[in-house]
């Protein structure tokens, strides 16, 4: 199955299960969890079922486009179900069938793995899903976001599309994946991977990043003072990405690391509180 058809099939599948289709966010995120459709969506009491593609940037995972599966930017398909149906595990397993995976012929495992986004004060309990040993999905019952206990809890299902495509197409490297419409993954992404790797590991201007960090933090704070938590949240995402870049550049000492996470999380917690206070 072509990469673009994997995206479409999963979107269709979850739309049929009652999700609405959202879109990737317009700023860099490290994971689909950071998209406001998840961070805010899982807060509060309201029903919230959503599916969307999320290209996610993790500078430290970059490999100059030379590693078969490690990427600066990978592709996630994110699904949120609030509250989760009681047969959610089977619904998920069934979604693999729509990709043409006959799970009864494979070795499918749910291996304990608890996911956490420390800068967002978000965490949950769940699994890595292994298909013949390959990690294809992170499946999490989210317990907290923005430091707030979630009630009801949400299920977050995050498909690693690049790996799934490798698996389906029997490719050894993501860059060999057939993207669809006579295009391949490498053609679209390999040069980007190379350049972003140089950027993340060697070229990103550390001094400028710190200036941006302080400025963006100030901006988020002043927006929060005016209870404008949506735009404030955008700045929190930027802070989070800057933090990831600084880490990739090895420019954060240990003490700083803990403090920076705490600074970003404090803002995220405020966003979550204001969102709840708005009656959500």
């Amino acid at each position, binding site marked *: 199955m072509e990469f673009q058809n994997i995206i479409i099939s999963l979107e269709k599948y979850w739309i049929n299960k009652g999700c609405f289709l959202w879109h990737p966010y317009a700023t860099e995120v490290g994971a689909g969890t950071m998209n406001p459709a998840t961070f805010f969506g899982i807060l509060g009491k309201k029903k919230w079922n959503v599916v969307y593609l999320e290209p996610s940037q993790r500078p430290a995972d970059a*490999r100059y486009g*030379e*590693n*078969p*599966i*490690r990427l600066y930017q990978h592709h996630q398909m994110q699904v949120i179900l609030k*509250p*989760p149906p*009681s047969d959610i*595990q089977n619904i998920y397993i069934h979604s693999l069938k729509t990709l043409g995976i006959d*799970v*009864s*012929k*494979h*070795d*499918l*495992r*749910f*291996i*304990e793995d*608890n996911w956490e986004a420390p800068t967002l004060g978000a965490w*949950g*309990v769940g*699994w890595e899903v*292994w*298909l*013949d*040993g*390959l990690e294809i999905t992170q499946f999490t*019952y989210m*317990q907290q976001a923005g430091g707030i206990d979630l*009630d*009801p*809890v949400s299920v977050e299902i995050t498909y690693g599309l690049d790996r799934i495509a490798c*698996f389906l197409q*029997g490719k*050894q490297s993501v860059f060999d994946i057939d993207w669809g419409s006579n295009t391949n993954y490498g053609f679209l992404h390999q040069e980007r991977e190379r350049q972003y790797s140089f950027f993340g590991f060697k070229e990103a201007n550390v001094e400028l990043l710190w200036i941006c960090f302080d400025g963006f933090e100030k901006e988020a704070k002043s927006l929060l003072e005016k209870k404008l938590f949506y735009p404030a949240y955008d700045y929190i995402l930027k802070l989070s990405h800057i933090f990831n870049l600084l880490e990739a550049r*090895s420019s*954060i*000492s*240990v*003490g700083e*690391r*803990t403090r920076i996470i705490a600074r970003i999380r404090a803002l995220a917690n405020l966003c979550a509180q204001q969102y709840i206070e708005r009656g959500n």
Partner: protein
Amino acid sequence: MKTEHLLIEIGCEDLPVWAGKHFIERFKLLFLEELSARRLAAGEIMFFFTNRRLVIFVRDLPSRSAAGQKEVTGPGFENSFDENGQPTRAAIGFARAHGVSISSLKVKNINGRKVVYIVKKIPGFSVSSIISGIFASVMKKIEIPRGMRWNNSKDVFYRPVRWILALYGKQKIDIEFGGIKSSRYTFGHRFLCPQKIKISDWKDYFDKTQKAFVVLGEDLREKFILNLLEKNIKNGESFEKSAAANLANLIEYPSVIRCNFPAVDYTIPEEVLRVLIEKANGVPIFRDGHLEKQFFVVCDGNSSEIVRINYENLLRTRILDAQFFFDSDISITLDEMKKKLDRIVFHQRWGTMAKRVERLRLLSSEISDILGFNTIFKNILVRAAELCKHDLASEMVREFPDLHGTMGAIYARHSGESKDVCEVISRYKYPVYSADPLPENDCAVVLGIIDRLDLICGFIAAGVDVSGSEDPYGLRRTASGFFSLVLKLGIELDYAGIVEKILDAYGVSGQDLVLSKKNIVEFLIQRFESYLDTEGFPKGLRTSVISIDRMDFVKTRKKLNAIRDFIIETKEADAILVPVTRVANILKQANEKGIVVSEFNSILLREAGEVALAKYYDRFSKMAEETLQNGDYSGFLGVISELKSPVDEFFSNVLVMCPQEQLKVNRLSLLKKFNDIFMKFADFSFIREEDIKNVRKN
């Protein structure tokens, strides 16, 4: 009374690998407590689990609980009856509240106070009402690490509960947890037999789950896997049973595939390959101590050709990935790697791993001197201490933490360190699990001791609470490894001094030092008690020696061994130890009565028995001191044996607690002289008869 078996199956979404054992330990305790509180005597209680179900099987449970009675205490006697013996309003009210007449009120003494009470009959209840009543509350009482909520019930468990089967004999029992009501249904293997299955009773359950591809017993699954592996192994090949056993709790129905290594070039060491295989549900195959170019994969249910190809491809990707880490690790020098330790936190209060390494280096040098090791040994130890944490900063160990030590040694060797130093680096972290073999190399043992004690001291000094039932920082496991190594080293040493040195290296001083040291010593002694317990030393024995030698673990253990051997080898050990404990006990009692024992005075000797005993003292003390100085603890017990007849004679002849004060004190003083020497070995007053019996039994 009619009895039946009770069967409860809790069906869950996939449980963490540790959950089954964790559940059994806690549920069993709480459940049996509740049963006995309700006077329901269970026969045997058994547990089974897989990654998708927890099964409780209670044999021979009576259909009703026993009837019983309890005393209910009412108002005080004076408030219940007036001077004329007439009941007051308080008494009338109490009787009425419990539905009894005034005449059935009884009177008893509680701490010298007279109170009124009644005896209340408690009827027996049906087993179904009792189980319905206690199940959910027991489930809720289990403290679950990283527990989760998943629905409106707000109940917390390891993973969501999706079905509950509960049968007493053929009768369904109504229980509820996590918003799930019990039923008569179970489910088979997720893919091999996914349908709902109706169950009539326990026999039917064990029969049908087996047919539905669920291997319930942990040990059965393990055996199942081992059999499959044995069947597929070729002549001259071998595999590690532990690698197979680790996989047993992640599956319901094992199957095994033999896979080939992918065609790919690599230079990563075998140790890494092995971990890569194990990380992917695999079991490495060895021939002559080296990896074969084939490996087993243990699957849950399916083992088709396509699964084999996928696992082979997976290993190919993993090898390429590991090769990337390996190449980038060896492209930098050890010094560059060391710099990265500045970026790894050891503990918030104590700073980075780099600081910890500096401390280990310093302590290694000091402790090497204390232990009296030669320069060659010291140099190896100090260099290994300096390098042993380097690999924590490597890409490979960040990805595969289990390879810590192994990679450290490989990278150190690559940069030209001596074989001896590398050997220490690769071995010092063992035992990681209690079954691990200990390092053979003394240097690695010493570094392991320092490393563990540094960790324990740091965490406790930083205020980590070690009193709870959980062990979040793994300090108990660390302590257990520490003791194994200390005993392996076998050098008598008061580790309290080492603790102080370590705290000093942390920069802890003043009041903080006193308190931290106290907490650390308490923790270690308590853990050592428990360590010796698992080695089979009964409580009285342990306490008798620990109370004397405290933080000298080696001496303690040697003495305990001597006592144990003595008890086992000497038929009349009880008879020999009895007079000794008698001396210890009589002094303890005197002390409790406030009798001050003074200087012994031979002029005050009256009876033949005491004269003889006093005469015996010099010979005894000389021999006893000699054995202690030589660390000959069996010898000491031999000397003690010879005391039996003079002491027995003394006690049958002489009344110690006689009316004449002066004589009494002097007799006690004579006994104290003996006891002072006993006390250099152990406080025998702690040893009871059952301890001696227990030693013989084990």
